């Protein structure tokens, strides 16, 4: 069977404007959650979030193209450029036909929708910008990446709420492995820290006004963020033949549905997804050296995810660090598992486990080693990244050290 490796990574997220800055922030345990600055913030109950600060789109994009690029698309393009640059790939006409894009997003051009609803409903205008549709569509980021790099193979967007990026990367993995493509750009991006995007989440009553404290006894909910990451997935022999640096191997993927509740987490679905990903990688649970948890910081997720991990890992649970980097970058919704995969790369490549920050006290419902507050050195050969979406859709990736 064809093997799949990662040869490039890029990101734009609240912790950093590239991979190096992001990993440095994770090593330092820096929390990017702060006061929100969006329009009409005074009408929100939830006024904290993890925004990308200091990003100047006009320095990245041709002003004539800006009207086509929602913030989520901008994030995806910036990340894709970094990933392609690191990979060193030159997209010839022949490679372009064997290369594609699968991106994940939950809200697509949510900010564009918000801005234009404001225009027609609040301001009472009867005209919107002519390019609203191509700007807001969920596949905008996928299409712009394919256009920028001439990737003419498979291209589409996956939208499975908080598991979007993992589902996207799982699909890209499958396509390269199956021979449908030799190179896939994949990951996720999200930008819904606008009034409507936050107000909708506020309604669910799962957001905290404090901060994100996954697995901590005093956790009071999740915090939204914005951002994303993009990776170059490449067929192993193809990467080796051109002497590319291999960041990690994508070893396995599992996806399941709870077929239960639309918002409440379930134990069985995640257990089956984790077991499926490990079986796909032909690895026993004992091989795991790090788990990047879904770890949203809600009472229900962290309790149920801990139970599920206990069921999969058994006695090995005590020996595996399980951290949630959402405590630092917030919940990036459809883009979150892409940024979280960077923590897995750091564990595999640098032997550094990103911490769960804002952790104050162990929780009897969460018997995991959450790597509280301070990064930890450890040799990690296999890492697993969990994503469990509203709607009961679970997607789990397993990476192996190159």
């Amino acid at each position: 069977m064809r093997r799949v490796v990662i040869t490039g990574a890029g990101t734009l997220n609240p912790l950093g404007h590239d991979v190096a800055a992001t990993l440095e922030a994770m090593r330092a345990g820096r929390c990017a959650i702060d006061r929100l600055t969006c329009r009409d913030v005074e009408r929100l109950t939830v006024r904290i979030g993890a925004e990308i600060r200091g990003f100047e789109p006009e320095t990245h994009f041709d002003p004539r193209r800006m009207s086509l690029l929602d913030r989520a698309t901008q994030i995806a393009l910036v990340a894709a450029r970094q990933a392609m640059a690191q990979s060193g790939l030159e997209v010839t006409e022949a490679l372009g036909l064997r290369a594609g894009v699968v991106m994940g997003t939950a809200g697509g051009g949510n900010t564009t929708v918000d801005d234009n609803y404001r225009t027609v409903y609040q301001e009472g205008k009867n005209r919107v910008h002519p390019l609203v549709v191509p700007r807001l569509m969920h596949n905008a980021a996928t299409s712009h990446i394919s256009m920028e790099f001439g990737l003419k193979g498979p291209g589409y967007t996956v939208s499975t709420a908080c598991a979007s990026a993992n589902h996207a990367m799982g699909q890209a993995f499958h396509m390269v492995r199956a021979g449908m493509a030799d190179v896939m750009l994949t990951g996720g991006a999200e930008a819904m820290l606008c009034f409507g995007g936050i107000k909708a989440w506020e309604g669910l009553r799962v957001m905290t006004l404090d901060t994100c404290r996954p697995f901590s006894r005093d956790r009071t909910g999740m915090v939204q963020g914005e951002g994303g990451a993009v990776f170059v997935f490449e067929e192993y022999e193809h990467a080796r033949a051109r002497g590319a640096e291999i960041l990690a191997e994508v070893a396995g993927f599992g996806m399941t549905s709870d077929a239960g509740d639309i918002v409440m987490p379930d134990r069985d679905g995640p257990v089956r997804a984790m077991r499926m990903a490990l079986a796909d990688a032909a690895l026993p649970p004992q091989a795991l050296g790090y788990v990047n948890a879904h770890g949203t910081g809600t009472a229900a997720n962290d309790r149920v995810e801990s139970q599920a991990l206990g069921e999969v890992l058994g006695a090995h649970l005590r020996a595996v660090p399980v951290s949630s980097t959402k405590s630092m970058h917030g919940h990036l919704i459809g883009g979150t598992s892409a940024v979280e995969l960077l923590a897995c790369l750091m564990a595999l490549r640098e032997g550094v486990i990103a911490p769960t920050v804002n952790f104050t006290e162990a929780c009897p419902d969460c018997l995991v080693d959450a790597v509280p507050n301070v990064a930890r050195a450890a040799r990690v050969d296999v890492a697993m990244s969990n994503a469990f979406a509203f709607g009961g859709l679970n997607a789990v990736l397993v990476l192996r050290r190159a």
Partner: protein
Amino acid sequence: MGLDVMQDSQPIAQAVIDIIAEQALVEPSEIRHDSTLADLGLDSLGLVECIFGIEERFGISVPFNANTPDQPGFDISSVGAIISEVERLVARQAA
């Protein structure tokens, strides 16, 4: 409609019971003050919809976070407890 008119025409308790009954798909007459939401078959989604209905009906903001259901911000241990909390919030709003 002013708050006074609303209270005259429909006591808070009855309005809260009507909102809960609508969510629980039962007749208001079947709901007792010592009923719990679980007794009425309401799950977490039904609860947040009840709270939304209460906020809209009374023009108040209910301090409820689904992650901390047992904390004292808003007591949801029974229908009677919820009514008391709503009465308190409405009185505070009017003050």
